[in-house]
């Protein structure tokens, strides 16, 4: 999944700041996701962080090669490891 351009919704920027998720983490998840699927009419990628957690990126493709990041969140544990 390669996006030539990645834009950030203001909602996503706020959540990134609030949840202490960096652009690098988001863009790494988009570039090389561990999981990719759709949820709530949005595209989702999950990427592992260096600390062993998972970053979730919710986004839409606004045009070919362009992603608009809508929200992000973090969960403890690596992708695929579901605690529930």
């Amino acid at each position: 999944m390669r996006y030539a351009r990645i834009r950030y919704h203001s909602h996503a920027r706020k959540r990134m700041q609030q949840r202490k998720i960096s652009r690098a983490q988001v863009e790494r998840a988009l570039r090389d996701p561990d999981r990719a699927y759709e949820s709530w009419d949005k595209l989702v990628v999950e990427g592992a962080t260096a600390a062993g957690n998972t970053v979730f990126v919710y986004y839409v493709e606004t045009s070919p090669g362009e992603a608009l990041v809508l929200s992000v969140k973090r969960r403890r544990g690596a992708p695929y490891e579901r605690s529930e």
Partner: protein
Amino acid sequence: MKIEFDPEYGLLYIELREGEAEETVDLAKGAHLDLDAEGRVLGLEFLSLGAFEHYMRGVGVLEVSEEGLTTWAPRGARDSAVLSRTSLTPRQREVVELLAEGMTNREIAERLGLSEATVRQHLHNLYKALGVRNRDEARTLLAT
């Protein structure tokens, strides 16, 4: 409570202030909760309009429309200043004005070209918004 809402992408965030959280969070199915170090809820994020609407109806917001949140009234609020008539949708305003005139559901339905079931739904939502239990209490409140 501060609400950020983007209907285009279905992005919704409710920032809770101290004391607002706990009684409403149990309704927040489908939401991501932001917690502080002590586990208190600071905010709720919804990525689905459906889940958000369910939540907001539960806590007293009636309408989520393209224009945004058109009516806000905490459940149980009896202060009529909380729910100004101008905050209602045009249809709700029509219903509430006919209710205040003393019309029955059937009369309101006939006047507005709606089914009685639709009128009942509008009234149900209005009662919740006004924090009243029935039309008599609503009329009393609207008359003040």
